[in-house]
């Protein structure tokens, strides 16, 4: 047991976060459980409003009060109970233990400071270096991410989108954190630049042995980067498992719907089968399973009770009543069906 705990870098248990506004309450997270082992890359997948970013912000203890309220749950990062820490304590954890790369490289850099200063800032704050040392270190970090040291004195507007995202990665890695949260790090970038940034992240992971918590909506990136996948819908993890579990043994109707919605580049004549309806309104969640209004496999129980996580294998958990009494897989994923018919 002890050993298992040591392997586990991050443990999120039953996390509930609501944002209480004047007129309504946004139920952003409704019972999230995520376990991240050291050295792994975890993919958190879901559509807009699924609660991916809220989960990431909670790990950084950056949920804005008073609207943001942690109703229930616990986050343990490297043995530290994150949510119980006060502001001073959490500041020593951020940067050193965990850091985050944000989605939009255009707006997450300070436009009036040169990038060297911005990278050095974290080093001064968390590693207690003096400014000169920190600037030298910042130059070295820039070299590591493929930007010449001489550009440390340049300002963010002098860099392209891909370069800015590299700078953000350098800032994230500056203090060599154990956990790096990457929130849609390549969404704003072109595919060829995305490929460069993903390659860089893979190399850095190999060199620094950082654990990466990757938020994305792109199953292509997950397939390429991650070891394990968590699929979120309406503030809860509805399916989790290894890459093989999720990609080849899809169990949840929502995950199936996502795969069926993706154009298949190898079989361009395969019809897309969209999920009908639209994503749930987090201020007005349906009773029972949040996905039932869009689901093709509903039964009476789905409308009444939220299914618990059912383990269909050691590594593969799914929240769906379909698997309550059986381990058979009733789903009809487009490509599975096509392969059976030898399409």
């Amino acid at each position, binding site marked *: 047991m002890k050993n298992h705990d040591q392997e586990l870098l991050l443990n999120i248990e039953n996390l509930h976060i609501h944002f209480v506004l004047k007129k309504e309450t946004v139920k952003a997270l409704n019972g999230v459980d995520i376990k991240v082992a050291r050295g792994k890359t975890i993919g958190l997948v879901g*559509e*807009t409003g699924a609660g991916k970013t809220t989960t990431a912000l909670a790990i950084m203890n950056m949920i804005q009060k008073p609207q943001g309220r942690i109703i229930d749950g616990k986050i343990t990062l490297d043995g530290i109970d994150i949510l119980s820490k006060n502001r001073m304590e959490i500041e020593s954890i951020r940067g050193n233990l965990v850091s985050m790369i944000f989605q939009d490289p255009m707006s997450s850099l300070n436009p009036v400071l040169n990038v060297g200063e911005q990278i050095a800032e974290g080093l001064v704050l968390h590693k207690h270096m003096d400014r000169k040392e920190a600037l030298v270190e910042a130059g070295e970090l820039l070299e590591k991410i493929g930007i010449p040291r001489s550009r440390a004195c340049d300002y963010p507007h002098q860099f*392209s989108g*891909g*370069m800015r995202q590299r700078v953000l990665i350098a800032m994230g890695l500056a203090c060599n954190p154990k956990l790096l949260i990457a929130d849609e790090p390549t969404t704003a970038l*072109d*595919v*060829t*630049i*995305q*490929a*460069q940034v*993903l*390659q860089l992240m893979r190399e850095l992971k190999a060199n620094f042995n950082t654990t990466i918590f990757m938020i994305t*909506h*792109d*199953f*292509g*990136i*997950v*397939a*390429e980067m991650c070891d394990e996948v968590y699929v979120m819908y309406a503030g809860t993890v509805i399916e989790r498992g290894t*890459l*093989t579990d999720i*990609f*080849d043994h899809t169990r949840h109707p929502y995950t199936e*719907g*996502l*795969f*069926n*919605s*993706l*154009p*298949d*580049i190898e079989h*361009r004549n395969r*019809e*897309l*089968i*969209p*999920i*009908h309806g*639209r*994503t749930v309104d987090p201020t007005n969640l349906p009773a029972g399973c949040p996905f039932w209004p869009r689901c093709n496999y509903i039964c009476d129980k789905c409308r009444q009770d939220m299914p618990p996580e059912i383990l269909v294998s050691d590594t593969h958990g799914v929240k769906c009543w379909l698997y309550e009494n059986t381990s058979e897989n009733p789903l009809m994923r487009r490509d599975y069906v096509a392969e059976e018919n030898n399409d």
Partner: protein
Amino acid sequence: MTDHNTILQVRNLKKYFKVGAGLLHAVDDVSFSIERGTTLGIVGESGCGKSTLGRTILRLVEPTSGDIIFEGKNITHVNRRAMKQLRKEMQLIFQDPFSSLNPRISISCAIDEALVLTGRYKDADERFAKILDLMGSVGLDERLANAYPHELDGGCRQRVGIARALAMEPKFIVCDEPVSALDVSIQAQILNILRQLKKDHNLTYIFITHDLSVVNYISDAIAVMYLGRVIEMAKTEELFANPLHPYTNALLSALPIPSIHNRKERILIRGEITSPINPKPCCRFAQRCDYCTQECLEKEPPLVDLGNGHMVACNRVGK
């Protein structure tokens, strides 16, 4: 010159913008033609000129030179009034469903605006029946007729955009990244609607996107753009099976495939897109190309047809 089946032909189209540092070559000598009832996908990365091309064809941006021939008629220099008539036949669907609708008018009014312009309907009742008909054909619930844009999510707004374009009963629609702002489950809904509408109304699309898997699904032929130039053009199957330009190759291999089988080896291209301002007379991809030779730095390769409709602009090809 143009046969009956060709709905649109573009010849040597150029659009240069004057900027402080010189001339920005947004669209540089682009030629192609589209057959009625087909979809031409235009792919490229940000700044390659794909949106400008779409807008220039509709003359929302005035071309610097070249010809646009729509339905056998050269429309490059027709006046505003004639263009207004022509726009009934050529429409545009915008990328951003959040900023392309007037926030102060309801959905039915937004569609009504377009219907009034057609002049085909005699009174409001007739138009309202048409509005409901249009809303039905793009999958919008009737009860949303009086809703305002802020009440709708991205997918529904994009449907309104499509309904407005359809209101004119066009023959030809330029879709400028219509699904890039949407979640995958919604994106699939919109793509299927666009496909269905094309079938029902025998529409012709130019589909502008940066997403190769989307363009593969929706297009019959694809033109790949790089820095204002079309560098490769072919039927969709041909392009994906047999990409010839090093840039197309790199684009295809950079695409993350949502499958854990048959993982390909990546071709990473170095560097980033160069400036489109006053480009040198050399191959525009030369600086990032692994196969770059002295010839590439001296001579800009023309777009050459390899015989089967597969065109490519690369000095390597054909040797």
